[in-house]
């Protein structure tokens, strides 16, 4: 592979992808800013020359890099993997515009003078917003309603990428809700479905909106890393979009049952109507108690369907197993229990 530049390398997906790339013998350039949970590991890799670490900032024009470094990158880099984003659902409009939209703009501005073979952009399935029906693996042109600023900013950056695809080939990856490694459960953020465990740890029952028989669009971080690694080795044609999702995720109920039982030995689940569950986010102390951003509740009751036909073909071609969450719920739970100093009840 020709020279690779990775932004957001110290994030969860970044660290997993870099580990995989380094194992395969690649020596990517990584753009590193400030402190993230993965900063230490990336710094340890840089010490051994496994990655070439550049102190930069995507929110700055020119990525905050010195001109001579940008010149070196222009000569060396043929592929860009853009992971950097602020993924908080509670993000305000100005931060979202600065990091997610502005970051992508700055990066595109810098690489516009490069001779790129491929640009890989990591988006999110939430760019679909609140639109009903099946979401295709294609650009989303018109838009009805966004649930939050995060969705809006990620959609706008996708629009930038769609335009950029006229200049160089672009592949957009839209991962689902990311959970820990399917082998070891390793993750740096316990959001999304982990809220069930936060509640159980505090002896609070899990409040389940509706029938909870809908499956959550989950994906384990190692699947995302495998897909990105395979994708980097296969440059896209013009514009490609993939929905990076587990092929058979557990339903909200299955996941919650298995986890609550393992952590506490009981399954305290209180079912409430959807409307009431949505209203729960206005309760004071909701975030502190559940570890869940109030905006996330809307996703718990959302009924989404995503087309994954292209993704299935992609995984087939690269021999990537797409079903990883359901069979490995135990490992995800074990990692959570380990991090929180809890015994397990099996």
């Amino acid at each position, binding site marked *: 592979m020709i020279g690779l530049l990775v932004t957001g390398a110290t994030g969860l997906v970044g660290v997993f992808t870099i*580990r995989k790339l*380094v*194992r395969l013998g690649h020596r990517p350039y990584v753009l590193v800013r400030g402190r993230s949970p993965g900063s230490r*590991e990336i710094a*340890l*890799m840089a010490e*051994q*020359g*496994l990655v070439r670490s550049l102190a930069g900032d995507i929110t700055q024009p020119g990525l905050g890099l010195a001109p001579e470094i940008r010149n070196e990158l222009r000569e060396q880099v043929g592929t860009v993997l853009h992971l950097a984003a602020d993924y908080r659902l509670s993000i305000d409009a100005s931060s979202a515009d600065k990091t997610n939209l502005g970051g992508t703009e700055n990066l595109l501005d810098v690489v516009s003078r490069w001779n790129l073979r491929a640009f890989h952009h990591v988006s999110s399935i939430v760019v679909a917003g609140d639109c009903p029906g099946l979401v295709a693996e294609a650009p989303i042109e018109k838009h009805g309603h966004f649930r939050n600023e995060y969705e809006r900013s990620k959609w706008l950056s996708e629009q930038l990428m769609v335009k950029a695809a006229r200049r160089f080939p672009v592949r957009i990856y839209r991962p689902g809700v990311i959970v820990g490694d399917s*082998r*070891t*459960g*390793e993750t740096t953020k316990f959001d999304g479905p982990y809220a069930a465990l936060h509640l159980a740890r505090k002896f609070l029952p899990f409040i389940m909106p509706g029938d909870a028989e809908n499956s959550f669009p989950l994906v384990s971080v190692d699947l995302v890393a495998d897909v990105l690694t395979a994708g980097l080795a296969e440059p896209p044609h013009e514009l490609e979009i993939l929905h990076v999702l587990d092929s058979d995720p557990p339903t909200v109920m299955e996941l919650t049952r298995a986890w609550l039982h*393992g952590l506490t030995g009981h399954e305290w689940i209180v079912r409430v109507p959807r409307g009431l569950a949505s209203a729960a986010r206005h309760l004071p102390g909701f975030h502190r108690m559940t570890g869940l951003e109030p905006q996330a509740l809307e996703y718990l009751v959302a009924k989404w369907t995503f087309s994954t036909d292209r993704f299935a073909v992609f995984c087939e071609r690269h021999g990537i197993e797409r079903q990883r969450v359901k069979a490995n719920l*135990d*490992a995800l739970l*074990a*990692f959570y*229990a*380990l*991090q*929180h*100093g809890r*015994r*397990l*009840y*099996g």
Partner: protein
Amino acid sequence: MCSAHILMTGATGNLGNALLWELLREPGQCSVTVIVRPGRADYLQWQLAKRGLEDPSRMHVVEGDIRRPFCGLADVPLPAPVTDAIHCAADIRWDAAPTELFETNVSGTRNFLDLTDMLHRRNPLRAVSIVSTAYVCGTRAGRIAEDGARFGAFNNSYEISKWLAERIAAVRRPYHVYVVRPSTIVGDERDGTIQSFSGIYYPIKLFWRRRMRWFVGKSNATLDIVPVDQVARTLLRAHESLRTDIRFIHACAGMDAPTLKQVMLEIISTLGGKTGRRSRRAPRLLRPALVRTVAPLAPFLPSKAGRALKNAAIYSGYVGVERTFDNENARQLGFPRGAAFKLSKQADFAIAHEFASAERRFQQGRP
């Protein structure tokens, strides 16, 4: 193991040190590269010198750290092409901080296997051993099969971290991987040598200091104890035999394991003579479940009693279950059958060293 070049971690620990000694004590062809943390090479030399191995020429020491990617050895040349690798390093503290346990035991195993994968691409490896623990079975009772560990209830974070580490070792690789699971390790059966006094040494110490009126456990619970040299030899025989039909090895006493009561009586008969109190009664046993229930009160008790209760709670998971570890694979690799269970050599060694770990003696400049 002729013509082998073995890469190993954890050489300053209990099992690693015993392995290294087994490899180096006899004249032979095999050589060893040992990964030690920076600044620990002197300690390793001191440990080997204690056992009569001054400056062994067949051993090379490289400084690395399993908590770093590729153990920090991605660009460090090794003295010879590696043929076998053994990963003994682990954090065995039952009550260590969860993040440390994950970093050392789980990420450490991943980093080690990343390193062996890289070495394999340069020069094919024959086999790799990952040392786990028999206690990945958690709280399960009855017969514990010698196969992939199932998810279940665990006693502590240490067990969870080793269970997760085994899941990394389960990934298919181009060389054979053994998962070696010793039970409670005690000193060398010939002279009692061991590097640190944990596990069964705690009740021995209590009795030696004449403080053991109470202990935690059920008298008929199994206490699977295994001398460290037996584990080391079984592991090395696995590498010699290259039996690919064997994957998990329970280096455990199995059917020959004593009960807690037998262990207590053995400690008393061994130490009774030495303390001059032959007719000493066995301690009264507190039920493990009771100890665990009252354990949260430990911080409110006087410091000595609080510490005793905390220790009892930590131990309670290991002295309340009747179980037998299947050890057919280990026996096929020459693990002894029907070995009589003795603790006198181990107790003598511990008493002679005043229950001070090798590391502490080294730091304090003691013999």
